[in-house]
């Protein structure tokens, strides 16, 4: 296997060959199957994929947030500035979750404790990690709320989650996550539950906070629009694997995997000339109880070849820092990436339009 990204430099967070399984009544689900990535200061890594592909499990397992049992990490390492972390704690006992890695979640309505004031919930983190007194921490919590652009922060800090709107709750979540000035913020579908105008505000806020603090963001989303707007680097995840990784430009303008191409074709654009219909990807992701022996995307891929059935494709470097797992890039394969882009634009032969 080739290296995912050819940088051995100043990665903040470095994850190698992560594997996560869940024991369920139906058997063992291999939710994450050997995922590697790096996160750099001040940059945004977007992990994009369909629901159920293992995006959230990937980051939650690093943070030690997957319920265990049934979940367990069966392989791989995660290093924060070179120090290995397990369940959100470094080997020398430092609790990095909440202090050096902050996290926000999809649904702000249910992600906050309904019987605690917003201020207390933010202050709590500071009390635990920074050893602040309650009043000190509360004062800082008000500042944090102000920083996340909440009006009348001192009054708001004394209120309970049910008195907040969804957008304000997500701002409070962000304030909570950045309270200890973490070097990494993990945002797990931060805008999915919000309406469009609020989405945009939240993304702006994240951007600004990132620039002010030189913070890395790991953004998990299924929305390519959000990816296009936020990401420096992108990992396309499918059935527990990264099918393609690269810079945002690589992914959007130089897609090297049929799945990425499919995702793009399924994404609405605002270009006038595109009169073509949106193209859904037929079928559904494979059963992770028994992952397919070859390429995970085989069953849905319009360009599937015999090699794809039983032989898992390795990572092919298709550019600097641009990797894809697709047999199309094998030297012996006669079909080229250009065909692939063409195929995305026109329906395949033999298929009903």
């Amino acid at each position, binding site marked *: 296997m080739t290296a995912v990204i050819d940088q051995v430099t100043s990665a903040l967070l470095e994850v190698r060959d992560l594997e996560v399984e869940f024991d369920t009544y139906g058997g063992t689900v291999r939710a994450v199957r050997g995922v590697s990535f790096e996160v750099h200061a001040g940059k945004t890594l977007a992990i994009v994929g369909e629901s159920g592909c293992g995006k959230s499990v990937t980051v939650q397992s690093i943070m030690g947030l997957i319920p265990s049992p049934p979940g367990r990490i069966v392989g791989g390492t995660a290093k924060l500035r070179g120090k290995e972390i397990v369940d959100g704690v470094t080997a020398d006992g430092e609790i990095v979750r909440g202090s050096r890695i902050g996290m926000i979640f999809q649904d702000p309505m249910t*992600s906050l*404790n309904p*019987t605690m004031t917003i201020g207390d919930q933010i202050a709590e983190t500071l009390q635990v990690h920074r050893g602040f007194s309650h009043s000190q921490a509360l004062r800082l919590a008000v500042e944090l709320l102000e920083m996340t652009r909440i009006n009348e922060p001192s009054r708001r800090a004394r209120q309970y989650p049910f008195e907040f709107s969804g957008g304000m709750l997500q701002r409070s979540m962000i304030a909570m996550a950045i309270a200890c000035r973490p070097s990494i913020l993990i945002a797990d579908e931060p805008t999915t539950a919000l309406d469009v105008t609020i989405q945009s505000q939240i993304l702006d806020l994240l951007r600004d906070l990132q620039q002010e603090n030189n913070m890395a963001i790991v953004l998990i989303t299924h929305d390519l629009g959000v990816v296009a707007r936020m990401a420096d680097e992108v990992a396309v995840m499918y059935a527990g694997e990264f099918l393609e990784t690269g810079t945002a430009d690589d992914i959007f303008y130089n897609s090297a995997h049929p799945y990425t191409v499919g995702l793009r074709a399924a994404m609405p654009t605002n270009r006038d000339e595109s009169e073509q219909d949106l193209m859904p990807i037929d079928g559904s992701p494979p059963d992770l109880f028994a992952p397919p022996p070859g390429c995970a995307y085989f069953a849905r891929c319009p360009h599937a070849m015999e090699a794809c059935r039983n032989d898992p494709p390795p990572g092919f470097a298709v550019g600097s820092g641009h990797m894809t797992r697709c047999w199309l890039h094998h030297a012996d394969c006669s079909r080229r990436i250009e065909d692939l882009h063409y195929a995305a634009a026109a329906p395949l032969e033999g298929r009903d339009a």
Partner: protein
Amino acid sequence: MILYTIKRLIQGVITVWFIATATFFAMHGVPGDPLMTDKAMSEEVRKNLDAHYGFDQPKWKQYGIYIGHMVQGDFGISFAQENRRVNDILWEHFPVSAFLGILAITFAGLGGILFGALTARYRNRMPDIVIMFLVILGISVPSFVFAALGQLALVKLNAFFGTSILPVAGWGTLSHMIAPSLVLGLGTMAFLTRLMRSSMLEIVSSDYVRTARSKGLPTTRIFLRHELRNAILPVVTVLGPSIAAITTGGFVVELVFAIPGLGRYFVQAVQQLDYTVIMGTTVFYGAFLVFMVIVVDLLYGLIDPRVRLE
């Protein structure tokens, strides 16, 4: 909150009025009105009753007199015991029952919360399996069987140690209260344990507990400030009905353990067909339960900001 309290109190008063009316018409409404025709009473009692209740007057007037007395907190005169006022009976026996009930509900509530949290924490492991087995037993065994078995156990225990560790029956000292209140609280505790467990399990896997963990909080802090407090809320909401269950369970426990409470007195009054005592006690207990439910609801408001601030 104040407005809410006033509203609830007014509702409570109307409900009590309905209970009193239902009791009155239940007693007078059927053919052969027991209050008018019971022969087993002395002439003196009869005269007292006529003077007090206006039995020689038409029904609607009697109702007026009855409600009038109720408003003044006067529950009337006993049928079976000459010249004894129902109020005196209530005053004498209710505190005993109330004390027993308070002990039992405290025991049931604390035990339920503790065991419920414990079972949720050790889900599907030994403590959970053992406690849940006992809980299912506790829910399925009637209170009088607990009372009988409890007493049997005490007899055997005392016989085993050769001395009286806890008295088998009676009332007066703290040692008299322990066994009956445990027995009385057992069923409710089992019920609350079950409720607390499922509430706790729901909350342990809730989004906000995940948030709390993502903040890197210590386990005990998550347990106390995020899990326990929210898990208790549904337990508090059923405390009202639990008080009713414990009150009626008290009848049997008082009977079996020979405790001079209102419950036992009520059962005796029923057996002696002491109608006025039955009516008075019914209305009194009804009012008591209505207001306990209100108290519990207000208490809930104190714990849950969503209710408090509305």
